[in-house]
């Protein structure tokens, strides 16, 4: 495989999946995903 293809492959993974990991880590650190919503649309603890 050419060096250019390897570099672009790595950059693609870094930006797209690295970006996903970054935003996921922010979500987990701050509001998280486990908050549930009750019937009135208010957030409740999980």
């Amino acid at each position: 495989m050419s060096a250019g293809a390897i570099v672009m492959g790595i950059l693609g993974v870094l930006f797209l999946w690295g970006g996903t990991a970054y935003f996921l880590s922010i979500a987990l650190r701050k509001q998280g995903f486990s908050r549930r919503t009750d019937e009135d649309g208010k957030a409740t603890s999980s």
Partner: protein
Amino acid sequence: MRGGKFVPEARERWTWRGAFVFAVIGSAVGLGNIWRFPYLAYENGGGAFLIPYFIALVTTGVPLMILEFALGHKFGAGAPIAMRRLRESFEWVGWWATVVGFIIITYYAVVMAWTIRYMVSAATLAWGEDAGGYLFGQVLQLTDSPFTLGGIPLPVFIAFVIGWVLMYLIVRSGIKGVGRVVMISMPLPVLLLIILVLRGLTLPGAIDGINYYLEPDFAKLADPQVWLAAYGQIFFSLSLALAILIAYASYLPGDAEIVNNAFLASFVNCGISFLAGLAVFSVLGYMALEQGVDVAHVAAGGVGLAFVVFPTGLGLLPAGASLFAVLFFLLLFSAAIDSAFSLVEGVVTSVADKWNLTRSQAVTAVTLPAFLLGTLFTTGAGLYWLDIVDHFINNFGLVLVGLVECIIVGWFWGAKEVREYVNARSEIKLGPWYEFCIKYPTPLMLTLTLIWSLYKELRAPYEGYPLSALFLGGWAVVIAAPIVAYVLSKLHRREVS
């Protein structure tokens, strides 16, 4: 709703944040991620295409997604009523997005039916050595002209009915039901894609295929068409301007996160597209090696890739060919199903909010006519009409809706108001760059995309179809959509007393 006033507490809600994020990702990840992105990247500079693609993602994709989330969340309604609450005269724009979504679901359900049909065919590799002949002759029973409808192939029709029954049941189960379904239907294609990538990468010739996919040709970046292709792909693949995201966001609780959800969903969607390219081109590399031809000779996109080239390539696998063929069509089906029911959900929410219908009433009112209209696409001439309608509604209908939505919200409601609204409840705070993106590059790129599509259209008839067919299935549909939308916006709104 009570007395015509918006009462947020009365609305159904996503049970938890993950359900909303999964639903948005599921809606965005569809057939285009698998059969459009890899070939588009290959044609437009290979690895170098990732640069305009990433820039388009950040400057248009994410900002527009945030805008639609903000609209749905703030006004707590589907696209038409959300637009109406912004300004009464804007309601038709919401209906325009809804009508475009409705048109797309009529034929998208047929493509999904093909994937169901092919899951059965894949078990025995029924296409043999002539996948093209099998698709056009046996499966679709393609006629020789768009105006010769021919018959309706029974297996495709049965698959079409199965697809619609599934969509009906899922959307009818309400937003909580959708939330439960996406917990399976969103991760499933990712898992299947990973299996196919791993299998693909271990095949001889795979590296040559990947090389074709990722070898950068930076000279291509000087070509404006490459940039338009990148912006177009981002726009088409994120479920924007289809009333879906506004509808989904309208079911969020009052204090819901918006900005990070948009970043997460957009990045996962694009990451999956990138992954799909690895799966597709590794198998194409193997196929080229087996057939003793260049990868460029077998590279394809769209229906040709999914139902002709890829099945041929999978049929050549040294072991487990039928298993991987079944997995591939299961991947296509699982990617298609949540995009399909999200389209239905967008229309159902619009209809239910306008006329205060129960969910069952709204789902029946939407699915029945969509099913009946979609039957046209299951006939022997269905592929022609599907191709024409898809081409025009995407390149003109969808882009126009996005442009108008962007101008209305960006310039009338105010990009600043959007930014302040979402920043008040989000984990990531948007800077002034957001306002700039919504007001300038996004409308500019959508306008250029529109002009470029129009120029290409006027230069030569699309795919050489008769002008009468292009007018009937293309221009007439594109022109009728805003007219129907305007009429719908003028119909009396039923309020609950």
